[in-house]
């Protein structure tokens, strides 16, 4: 769940990049880190093996747009894609707000894509949540490989739930589709958060003025330093 800090006027979201091994999750974060300006990013931390395979997670904190005086922040994580690290993937998914599922477009990776998505659903369910209630987007990466499956086929096998989610073709090594994907999941999260806040405010207004707190009332208290 998004963290709201009225004291610092910040709203923080956690986004996890998920997908099979070697699909491009870490490459996505590396490209984002290289492109975002210095003032709006932290260090990209990678807990990886000597062979550059993600062992625990990659982590990249980003400062995003300020809306009505509230700074929005996104913490991007990746999970290790190798099958044996499922316990670790469950830990990284704790308190997730949004997911980017990165699929490998190569024909020979289809089974892994499907297994990884099923694994995501299982791990989300373990936390008592449902994939259909968590904002997520799909990225069909590695479109530049010699043998990519057509996008409509990837849509057929991965974007076939009752509600179809935004999907993007990508070549993470060159950056194609990377920011489109990130912007999409970020907007989804901000929209969902704004909608929930509007609903809560409307409900409290119906309850009467005593149940409603104004921002000025909270701001009147000063923060101890």
């Amino acid at each position, binding site marked *: 769940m998004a963290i709201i*800090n009225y004291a610092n006027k910040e709203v923080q979201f956690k986004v996890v990049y998920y997908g099979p091994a070697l699909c491009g999750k870490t490459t996505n974060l590396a490209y984002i880190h290289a492109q975002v300006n210095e003032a709006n990013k932290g260090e990209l931390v990678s807990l990886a093996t000597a062979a550059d395979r993600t062992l625990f997670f990659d982590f990249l904190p980003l400062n*995003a747009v300020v809306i009505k005086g509230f700074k929005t922040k996104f913490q991007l994580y990746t999970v290790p894609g190798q099958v044996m690290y499922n316990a670790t993937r469950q830990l990284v998914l704790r308190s997730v707000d949004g997911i980017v599922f990165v699929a490998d477009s190569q024909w020979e990776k289809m089974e892994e894509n499907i297994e990884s998505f099923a694994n995501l659903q299982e791990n989300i369910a373990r936390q008592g949540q449902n994939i259909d209630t968590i904002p997520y987007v799909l990225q069909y990466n590695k479109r530049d490989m010699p043998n990519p499956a057509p996008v409509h086929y990837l849509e057929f096998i991965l974007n076939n739930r009752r509600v179809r989610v935004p999907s993007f073709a990508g070549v993470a090594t060159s950056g194609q589709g990377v920011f489109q994907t990130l912007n999409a999941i970020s907007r989804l999260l901000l929209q969902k958060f704004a909608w929930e806040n509007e609903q809560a405010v409307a409900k409290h207004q119906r309850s009467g003025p005593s149940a409603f707190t104004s921002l000025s009332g909270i701001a009147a208290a000063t923060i*101890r330093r």
Partner: protein
Amino acid sequence: MHTTPIMTIHAVNQLIEALEDYLDKSEANFSMVLDRGGSILCQHGTIPKNSDPVIVAALAAGSFAATKELAHRIGENEFSALHQEGKTSQIFTCGVDDDTVLVTVFGPQTTLGLVRFYSARTVKQILEVIQESRSSDEVVPLFTQQDVNAAKAIFSR
């Protein structure tokens, strides 16, 4: 009721007070209260130079979560605390509740025993604040969907 505490100014002030007292008595350098996902709810003290508390928080939360899972795998209910010792600095991490963690960074001027002793009381104080925040029905209008739509770029490049 919110499952994640909403950090009002009052809640943050209470936490800062608790952490200030804790650092004063235990002589530790820096402490922070995190949620299980690695986000900082409150921090106080002097962190080592060139350290980014956001990254320390993410790593500490991940480390503690892995420790908890490890405990389950060997038949323990949980490891309630984790201690990491370096040449000049140490980190003590303990659970406040299932969703909250207290991380303390300290140096040679104090001892693990003193930090552990005072952390027990501080954990109770933090838990009270967190539970009150979670049970709060306080709602403040932040921004609307229209405001989000009006934002041109989410990230600056």
